């Protein structure tokens, strides 16, 4: 599409002027870092992509000084991760949104992941690892939109990864891919089938994304692929689970009170950091500080459940969805009826992951945003 390419060139985020500017040096070269400090005062980090580094492409073993590419860096989780990672690593962020308050040493590319520009980023930089957080969860978007974003863009990312032999891939999937079902075992292990789309077609792209990452794991043994499947991520993020817990009177399906797991966003960030260590590969479920019935969770978060019979809740949600008053499809009510909890023993033994935030702290962070909003 020539049209979009032209418009891309005029974006403020695209390289202004294409003047050759020094490549960002590694953390091992403190002198160069001092020099670069001045160049960093530009409003947007500029880099030169056309000049290939001598090490790229022909690299035999992973260079420790490579940078970590984070897709979807402008989400709350991406920002948190970038802020943690940039202390030890060079971070390259990719997102369609601008990264306004980013730390100075983070390179941000405001591009669409489906664009050719992505390849330039891979070509021009020594990418040590890719963390894929750029997953579109918005249920309001059309199915095809979500498909092209979550599947086509991810497929392209994987192509570049194999082309430039990036040694590490971390994909943030979720426990939702297992799907809440009445016949679920209380704790799902990593081997459980991904039935998330069985009763809710809207989950198909997320399940497919997980599958794509898994097939990449087998097809490219030289790349250490890690798939993380955390339970409901809550905290100061604005996702469905956190927004639900922020409500004063959240709806609960009458007669159902499933056990729930939540995990703090910072614990997920730490799990990603652990997954970035060399030698770690595989699928890991990530669990929070413990599970409790949904009603207890709501009460502890300061809300009071509103009990609604299942057919009525479904009818009401369908109508609200049609009128665009709710962004919660009625099929997702299954999350409020059946268990979908994960067993994180593998993450504990192999990844060394241990949730650090207590349930009080988790819910305090969820609540904090509610009070800010109100």
């Amino acid at each position, binding site marked *: 599409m020539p049209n979009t390419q032209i418009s891309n060139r005029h974006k403020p985020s695209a390289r202004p002027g294409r003047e050759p500017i020094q490549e960002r040096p590694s953390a091992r070269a403190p002198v160069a870092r001092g020099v670069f400090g001045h160049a960093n005062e530009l409003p947007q980090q500029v880099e030169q992509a056309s000049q290939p580094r001598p090490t790229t492409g022909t690299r035999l073993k992973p260079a420790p000084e490579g940078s970590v590419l984070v897709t979807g860096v402008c989400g709350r989780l991406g920002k948190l991760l970038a802020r943690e990672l940039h202390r030890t690593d060079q971070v390259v962020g990719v997102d369609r949104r601008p990264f306004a308050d980013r730390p100075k040493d983070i390179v941000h590319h405001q591009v669409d992941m489906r664009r050719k520009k992505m390849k330039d980023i891979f070509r021009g930089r020594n990418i040590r690892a890719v963390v894929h957080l750029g997953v579109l969860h918005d249920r309001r978007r059309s199915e095809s939109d979500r498909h092209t974003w979550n599947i086509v863009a991810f497929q392209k990312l994987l192509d570049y990864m194999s082309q430039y032999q990036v040694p590490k891939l971390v994909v943030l999937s979720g426990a939702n891919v297992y799907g809440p079902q009445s016949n679920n075992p*209380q704790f799902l292990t990593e081997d459980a089938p991904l039935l998330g789309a069985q009763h809710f077609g809207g989950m198909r792209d997320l399940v497919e994304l997980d599958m794509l990452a898994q097939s990449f794991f087998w097809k490219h043994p030289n790349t250490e692929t890690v798939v993380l499947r955390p339970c409901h991520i809550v905290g100061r993020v604005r996702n469905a689970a956190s927004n639900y817990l922020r409500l004063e009177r959240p709806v609960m399906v009458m007669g*159902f009170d499933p*056990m729930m797991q939540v995990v703090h966003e910072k614990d997920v960030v730490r799990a990603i950091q652990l997954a970035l260590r060399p030698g770690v590969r595989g699928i890991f479920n990530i669990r929070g500080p413990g599970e409790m019935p949904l009603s207890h969770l709501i009460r502890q978060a300061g809300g009071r459940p509103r009990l609604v019979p299942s057919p009525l809740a479904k009818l009401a949600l369908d109508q609200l969805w049609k009128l665009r008053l709710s962004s919660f499809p009625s099929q997702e009510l299954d999350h409020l009826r059946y268990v979908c909890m994960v067993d994180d023993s593998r993450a504990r033994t192999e990844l060394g992951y241990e949730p650090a935030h207590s349930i009080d702290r988790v819910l305090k962070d969820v609540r904090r945003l509610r009070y800010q909003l109100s």
Partner: protein
Amino acid sequence: MGQGGSIVPFAGWRRTRLLGESPLRQVLRAVGDRVVRIAEDVVGQDLDARIAGIKTHLNEVGHDPFGFDPETSRYALALAALLHRRYFRTQVFGINRVPQGRVLIVANHSGQLPLDAVMIGSAMMLDADPPRFPRSMVETWTAELPFISTLYPRLGQVVGSPENARRLLRQEESLIVFPEGARGISKTYDHRYQLTDFGLGFVRLALETGTPIVPVAVIGGEEQYPSVADFKPLARLLKMPSFPVMPQMLFGMIAPLPVKYRLYFGEPFRFSGDPDDDDSAIEEKVWLVKSTIQSMVNRGLRERKGVFV
């Protein structure tokens, strides 16, 4: 009303109500507590102490990972104790044979409603020392029923799946298993005390987790709801495993007949072998358990003087 002096009548009441429990919950709690006190008087045992005496495996936030709630369970235990001691006058033999730690309690299944599980459970809670809280595995479709799906986990019932069973045994819990399943519970009266086919899963589970199997014979359950026929078309229509035709219902007797329950706990089996062995090898062990239970049942039937005494 506070010193601020709200002019809205009952404003203070409304505020306290919103902060505290709902009135319905308060009433339920009061009724429940009363039932527990009555049961304690009748049974002559401190039920709360029994509940407090069981070993629990709480997670980091102080909840049982499977949803067991001692608060709800004490009401259920009170009702079960009344049934156990007064209504069914259950006699328990050899409960001290149940070993400590992980154990599979395998019993014959009977009586249209799983009151045999309630009797085994209450025997373990009231007669065993220290009290044990056995879990039982329930059908997966019960998780789709409103209220039931909330109640069962709170009472420690777990949706039947091999993963759940394995996890519970690894945390040294006791598990009640009815290998006959729905075939056993919906037997008609002419097939009473004849064990139907046993599933093989429980022996594989025991081999995998190194769990002793305690055989239990339940006498009395078959006569609580005598069924003369199984109305299969209606069962299919209602998606139930069976639709028993029970004459006592014609006389408006919904409650089970006040039969006398007898529970015989046998010596535990400790099998060793490969859990993934051929069916024929597993079947031998299953047959051993089944024939032991059948002979215990036969002996119990010979010994009893009558159904109600």
